[in-house]
């Protein structure tokens, strides 16, 4: 009734294979995009940008990246925090001009990159590091790999803490983004406007989602899924596991790096690596894709939205309505998140994305369910 495909004819292969084959879906998607691009920037304020929209957009990119690796390629990774840190620190180095030293002398210094390209370079560097840490995945599988990626997490955080070059020898050991503008609008620094940072992140989110969607339904995505479902069988039918696994690590790390760069430069402005990109961040992004739905683009968004909203909602309910102390609410949040993970895994292992799919199926038939 609400959701009909009767009369929705498709006459070409291109129409048949499009992302949203049903008209209603397609229009809904355009409406969402329209609101996101042309309506929200005019009504956004600081609170909405900083506590909801920016973290949502940034985490959505990270979740997309991790979902490619875990959901589509089946390689469980607990190193997301470390990879986000690589993105953040590369972005910082490229923003401020990479200096190459040799034997105590400055060899040369790259010019300062535009913030836009710094973020991209953050992704590129992270992709390289991701491939490096993805190499063991050819030998190690399952839990063993999950634990092996912890090596990346702890090693990278240690590296950025200890090697002063990465934070430009600043006394505090922190990195903080200098003021940079893109197309005339300030993107980083303390005096940005919410609409500019929002649009900047939104651009990256939309592009990432489109790329991810098209990669996962194309040849590379099919190879990843074949590896996920059974790697030996995939190898026998001609999927090269080396290439498939490493491209998954590369693409996934690229997105995670971009998200880390945005998280540092646009959202936080200044970070201390152990605090911002610790092991808890890895788990947070992993939870997003579990709750949202493994192997689903929509799921990455849903999971990110859910876990960004949940603490805010709990805070509003607990602290503002009931007047509880903040530490109790923080502990309750752990209980709720942990409980939800377990409940989701029991009741709906495919997450919010599956609930959405079921709901759509029901709506298609409503009110005549047969």
């Amino acid at each position, binding site marked *: 009734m609400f959701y009909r495909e009767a009369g929705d004819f498709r006459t070409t292969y291109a129409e048949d294979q499009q992302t949203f084959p049903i008209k209603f879906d397609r229009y809904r998607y355009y409406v969402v995009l329209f609101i996101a691009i042309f309506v929200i920037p005019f009504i956004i304020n600081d609170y909405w940008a900083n506590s909801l929209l920016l973290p949502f957009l940034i985490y959505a990119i990270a979740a997309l990246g991790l979902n490619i690796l875990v959901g589509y390629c089946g390689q*469980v990774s607990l190193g997301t925090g470390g990879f986000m840190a690589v993105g953040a620190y590369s972005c910082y180095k490229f923003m401020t001009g990479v200096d190459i030293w040799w034997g105590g002398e400055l060899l040369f210094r790259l010019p300062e990159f535009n913030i836009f390209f710094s973020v991209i370079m953050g992704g590129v560097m992270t992709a390289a590091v991701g491939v490096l840490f993805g190499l*063991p995945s050819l*030998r*190690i*599988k*399952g*839990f*063993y790999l*999950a*634990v*092996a990626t*912890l*090596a990346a997490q*702890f*090693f990278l*955080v*240690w590296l950025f*803490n*200890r*090697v002063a070059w990465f934070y430009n020898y600043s006394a505090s050991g922190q990195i903080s983004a200098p003021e940079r503008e893109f197309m005339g609008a300030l993107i980083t620094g303390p005096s940005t406007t919410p609409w500019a940072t929002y649009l900047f992140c939104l651009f990256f989110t939309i592009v990432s989602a489109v790329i991810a969607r098209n990669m996962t339904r194309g040849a590379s995505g099919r190879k990843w899924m074949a590896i996920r479902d*059974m790697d*030996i*069988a995939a190898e*026998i039918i001609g999927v090269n596991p080396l290439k498939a696994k490493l491209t998954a690590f590369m693409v996934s790390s690229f997105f995670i790096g971009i998200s880390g760069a945005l998280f540092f430069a646009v959202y936080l402005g200044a970070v201390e690596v152990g605090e911002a990109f610790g*092991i808890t961040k890895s*788990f947070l992004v*992993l*939870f997003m894709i*579990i709750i949202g739905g493994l192997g689903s683009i929509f799921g990455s968004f849903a999971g990110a939205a859910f876990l960004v909203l949940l603490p805010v909602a709990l805070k509003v309910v607990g602290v503002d309505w*009931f007047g*509880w*102390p903040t*530490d*109790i609410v923080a*502990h*309750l*949040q*752990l*209980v*709720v*998140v*942990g*409980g*939800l*993970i*377990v409940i989701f*895994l*029991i009741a709906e*292992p495919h997450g919010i994305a599956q609930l959405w799919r079921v709901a759509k199926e029901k709506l298609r038939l409503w009110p005549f369910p047969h």
Partner: protein
Amino acid sequence: MNEQLAFTIEVFANGLMAGVLYALVALGFVLIYKASGIFNYAQGVMALFAAMTLVGIQNGQVPFAHLINAIFGTDVHHFGWHVHSFLAIALTVVVMIALAWMVQKFVFKHLVGQEPIILFMATIGLAYFLEGVADLMWGSELKALNVCATETACLPQGMNVWLEGTTYEALGYGFFIDNLDIVASIVAAILVVGLVMFAQYTKQGRAMRAVADDHQAALSVGVSLNFIWVLVWSLAGFVALVAGIMWGAKSGVQFSLSLIALKALPVLMLGGFTSIPGAIVGGLIIGVGEKLFEFLIGAPYLGGATENWFAYMLALLFLVFRPQGLFGEKIIERV
């Protein structure tokens, strides 16, 4: 005796002691993994939970006092009594058994037959849940833990004076080793022997091994899977309690205690997930390796704090050459 060499030996000995503590946590993992194929990430949080419960019972704290006060506006915090350590340990064991039963009843009973990685993620969720509950129940501040048999006979603190004196006289260099570490090693040894005896010579132990070997075959000869799983989780809870006491007495009971679970992971990878001796040997290798690496290479050349990642890197490199760990069963894959 050469000063540098003696110092290296001392670092080595301290590494061994630290390794024993890692092995203690890793043991709990192996127990559950063998019997149910669940890779229990929550083991570290269970240690934290057990230690907090023990301290809470010892000091007569009111559970959930903070929450109750916030909701009802009351002001309760302590019952005003002190429980003897042994009684408190017994009560904590009861709590851990209840926890094991609940975990089995409400979580893993519903996840039978799921993929291992789903079960792993469920235990991560469980870890968060338990951590939140532990904080709500007993408060999240740093607590001191000590177990005392009588007023004066407590778990020893500080370094062993006798050992230092003797070695100083014999070798000209006093070895510096914590009393607590020595106690922990002895306790760990007793625990391992006890667990192996239990698994080999009791009826329940035999059933446990049967379940570990083949679920369906065990079920068909009349072993109750449910009972065995509760038993195994209780045993893991008990091991967590012991680990919690040792770590808690060493560095206080606080959130970072749960992070030792992360340290136990490379131990397991090195030793193989399915082997109790593997957990011990892996623990010792990691303990010694990271202390020696920090002392010989990390601190002088790399700026220190390499202990954070050395264990993982070692395990990673090791796994590339031997994917099933030292003592693990060979992984055979068929299409």
